[in-house]
């Protein structure tokens, strides 16, 4: 049996980032528990993108802060996370321009340097793009991407330096609550006496919350990604068109995905239908990569809430803290969410007022905040 000030459930970017910021605030008697290997859930399966081009005040403010923190991570973590501000180039048809002009207006008011550009400017940013049928793009040069496994690795090393234990291949089985207070977290290997639990369990978050009698409005949607063989980097922006998105990693691989419009599923298997669909879509935008080889495809989950915003902060059960339901944006939000949850645990409030709007309570009171820009 061990005594811990905070037990973090989940060794993806959310759990590791929360542990990192808790440690920076001086809370060292904490532990991270991961049922598989680090980054084995949605973090390690994601499309690497980091963007501020959202449509709500909450998402834009949080992502603007997260981009600031991604820069800090790149400079301060013990290993590069390969954060690169190559921009997001969101290709638009004529009938989409006005809608995105409104989104850009809100982004600009909130301090994000996005703008609507025309077809010729698109060609200047990515010369190989086929501009047939497109009118222009929404372009944000300060958006970018980072490398998920290097990020996990960098946080792992940072936590090791702080002396914070990470327990992999260990599964939380039960959370004991007495008199309305958390008492103990029981895994298949150990018992931890604690009054604070962070639920950062990604696609397992619903199960963890059920252990304390809380039902989270989360649904799992499978999304697939493919990656190419490496070639010299020629594409730094993330290119988006409809549901299609793709970029090139620093290791030279084209990585991207699209949406097959599947029903909610518990399956993480990749499917035969994905590659033909993805190949057709990507070649219609970037025909020059036709002879480039596809190396791998895999699937991951979007853990989706009814309004496509995460659920952050406290619950009716004191000490039970949520960082769940990122709806496809958990990796990019990782730095800011970790810092917000650490602030919540240490000081009782998340330091951005917009984050406090993203509480679990909103689903009971009906104060939903709809995000319109979800890709993939």
């Amino acid at each position, binding site marked *: 049996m061990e005594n811990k000030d905070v037990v973090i459930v989940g060794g993806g970017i959310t759990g590791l980032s929360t542990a990192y910021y808790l440690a920076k605030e001086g809370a060292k008697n904490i532990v991270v528990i991961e049922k598989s*290997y680090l980054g084995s859930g949605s973090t390690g399966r994601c499309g690497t993108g980091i963007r501020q081009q959202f449509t709500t005040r909450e998402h834009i403010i949080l992502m603007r802060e997260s981009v600031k923190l991604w820069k800090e991570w790149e400079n301060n973590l013990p290993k590069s996370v390969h954060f690169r501000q190559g921009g997001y180039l969101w290709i638009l048809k004529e009938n989409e321009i006005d809608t995105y002009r409104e989104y850009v207006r809100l982004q600009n008011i909130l301090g994000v340097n996005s703008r609507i550009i025309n077809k010729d400017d698109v060609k200047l940013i990515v010369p190989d793009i086929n501009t047939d049928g497109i009118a222009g793009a929404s372009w944000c040069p300060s958006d970018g991407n980072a490398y998920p496994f290097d990020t996990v690795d960098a946080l792992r090393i940072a936590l090791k330096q702080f002396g914070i234990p990470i327990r992999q291949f260990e599964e939380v089985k039960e959370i004991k609550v007495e008199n309305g207070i958390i008492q103990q977290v029981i895994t298949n290997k150990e018992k931890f006496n604690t009054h604070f639990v962070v639920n950062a369990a990604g696609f397992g978050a619903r199960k963890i919350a059920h252990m304390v009698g809380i039902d989270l409005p989360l649904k799992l949607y499978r999304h697939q990604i493919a990656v190419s063989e490496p070639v010299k980097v020629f594409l730094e922006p993330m290119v988006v068109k409809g549901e299609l998105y793709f970029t090139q990693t620093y290791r030279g691989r084209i990585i991207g995905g699209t949406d097959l419009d599947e029903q909610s599923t518990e399956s993480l298997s990749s499917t035969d239908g994905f590659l033909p669909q993805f*190949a057709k879509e990507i070649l219609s935008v970037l025909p020059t990569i036709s*002879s480039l080889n596809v*190396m*791998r495809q*895999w699937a991951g989950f979007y853990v989706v809430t009814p309004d496509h915003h995460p659920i952050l902060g406290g619950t009716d059960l004191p000490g039970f803290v949520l960082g769940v339901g990122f709806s496809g944006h958990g990796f990019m939000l990782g730095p800011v969410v970790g810092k917000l949850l650490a602030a919540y645990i240490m000081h009782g409030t998340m330091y951005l007022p917009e984050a406090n709007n993203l509480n679990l309570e909103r689903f009971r009171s009906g104060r939903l905040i709809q995000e319109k820009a979800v890709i993939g």
Partner: protein
Amino acid sequence: MNDKDIIICRCEDVTLADIKEAIKEGYTDMESLKRHLQIGTGPCQGKTCIPLTEKILARELKKSVEDVGIVTARPPESPIPFGIFLKGDKKNGK
């Protein structure tokens, strides 16, 4: 022969010395080791290096290959060009 001169993963240029060092640092399961060193993520699809690494990891930890875990094989089995998926369409169009 020096461990630094023994290449285990040719695509990603990972040596036996790199693998032993990573195991010492605590990357003691195949999935974590693969992602830390990028072993098996090159164009050979891990066909040579993954079985070798499994054996090295098992030997270093004094475990059986079954106990160190295997990595998920991802499709396609061999790399194929994006353009291959358009060929059927052209035929149908004609």
